């Protein structure tokens, strides 16, 4: 059984955040408040700063100006166990089998010198890892190495790994972008189920508008408000739509699609 809600709840607040690289402005004047337990999906054209935004939440990047707060305190300047992550690829360790990929999370935390647990401590950790693999439906593949798993199973493994630390926030960077439509549906069901049962706060970047509308509680659209054709990087992107999911009219969907140029769904796209 998977335990209930995470130990701590997290709120994320951005106050007038800018991100610049030299003279290039990626994000400007971003204000946002996300309550704990929200499932935020993020869409936008490529190069509109949604990945930069995710990297700031991860701690890989810091804001050039403004404040980025987690539970009222500044976001740490490097990744840590309070924020789990699943990338589109390279998320799991290729040299460890499925069980060890999940078990290693426990060993990182509890065997600071040797990186390995032994005896009773190992049995306890192993049981927890098996529980997590069951929760994502990988109990039959514990001995398999990542290259022996399908793309969908690799992402299930990455999710199990990320949840081992009971993170307050789960960051998903186009996690299902490389999967077949059928598999993607299964993954949506899995992530929604885990989100509800564990009370996670999720930020998910996607380039699939339908996915953004279907999953979660809140959709953010990143886009440039001002545009200078002579200097495409002179103005940064901002959050242009902030919509509660579930109250969406088709006209709004079409409007966002026209603005961002994104396909309605990768499924329709690949079949069309």
């Amino acid at each position, binding site marked *: 059984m998977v335990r209930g809600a995470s130990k701590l709840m997290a709120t994320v607040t951005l106050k007038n955040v800018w991100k610049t690289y030299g003279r290039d402005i990626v994000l400007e004047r971003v204000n946002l408040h996300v309550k704990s337990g929200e499932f935020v999906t993020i869409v936008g054209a490529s190069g509109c700063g949604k990945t930069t935004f995710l990297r700031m939440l*991860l701690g*890989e990047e810091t804001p050039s100006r403004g404040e980025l707060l987690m539970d009222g305190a500044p976001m740490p300047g*490097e*990744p*840590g*166990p309070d*924020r*789990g*992550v699943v*990338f589109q*690829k*390279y*998320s*799991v*360790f*290729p*040299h*460890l089998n499925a069980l060890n990929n999940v078990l*290693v*999370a426990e*060993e*990182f*935390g509890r065997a*600071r*010198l*040797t*990186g390995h647990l032994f005896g009773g401590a190992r049995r306890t950790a192993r049981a927890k890892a098996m529980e997590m693999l069951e929760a994502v439906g990988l109990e039959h593949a514990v001995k398999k*190495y*990542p*290259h*022996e798993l399908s793309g969908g199973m690799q992402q299930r493994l*990455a999710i199990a*790994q*990320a949840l*081992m*630390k009971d*993170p307050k926030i789960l960051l998903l960077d186009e996690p299902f972008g490389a999967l077949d439509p059928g598999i993607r549906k299964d993954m949506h069901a899995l992530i929604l189920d885990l989100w509800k049962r564990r009370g996670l706060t999720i930020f998910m970047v996607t380039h699939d508008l339908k996915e953004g509308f279907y999953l979660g509680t809140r959709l953010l659209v990143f886009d440039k408000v001002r545009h200078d054709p002579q200097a495409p990087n002179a103005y940064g992107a901002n959050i242009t739509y902030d919509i509660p999911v579930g109250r969406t009219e088709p006209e709004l969907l079409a409007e966002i699609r026209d603005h961002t140029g994104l396909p309605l769904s990768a499924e329709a796209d690949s079949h069309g």
Partner: protein
Amino acid sequence: MKRFINQHPPRAVGYFLGLLPFVLLLLAYVAASAARLAENPNDPLLPSLGTMLDTFWRLATEPSRRTGELVLWVDTAASLTRLGLGVGISMAMGLVVGILAGLIPYAGRTLSPLITAVAMIPPLAVLPILFITFGIGELAKVVLIVFGIAPFILRDVQQRVSELPAEQLIKAQTLGASSWLIILRVVLPQVFPRLLDATRLALGAAWLFLIASEAIASTEGLGYRIFLVRRFMDMATILPYVVWITVLAFLADLLLRMVNRLLFPWYGGRRS
């Protein structure tokens, strides 16, 4: 008819084609040798296969009249000890310094220029310095091998470390790993098979430096022996020794390849 690039020989034909050049070379040698010996039975330059086998057998089984030792095995043991020490030290240095320089930015900035500069120095040019500094004993020969191949191995390891996907290192951090545990559980196991690959490539150079240093100052060793008997144009010793060195080099390569396949089953399939 198919294009040449699409024509593949059947398996048996493939083996035959692979053997063919060896057989032709051997036949050419036997013919040339027979022609020379027909003119002068004492000609030393192209001894018959039988003479070479006899000489080799004598060196391997009969104690030397001068020292009472089995020359071939004394030479082989001396050379392999030097080679093993030199290659082993180079691997250890390459692994430790390569990982530090590739993973820790401060270490990389400090060490990379030095490593690049040292790698540019032709190793044989420093051989006199090594003989002066370390004497003409074993140490100088081992140091020459280290000087010759450690920079290559080290730079290869450093390169491989910096090629590890950033996603993996971030994932490890979100699972709570310290720098040390990232080295121990993420970097080291993934770099080790690549270290063995780099060592295989460096082995040719290691043999070169070994034989060069043995030729200049030594009292036993495979390189010492062939340069010693060169004075007597004793091809009946030199040619079997060259074949023997080739066999040893081949076996060393085979051993490293087998270790890689046995210890790192995930390595071959990681790209799929």
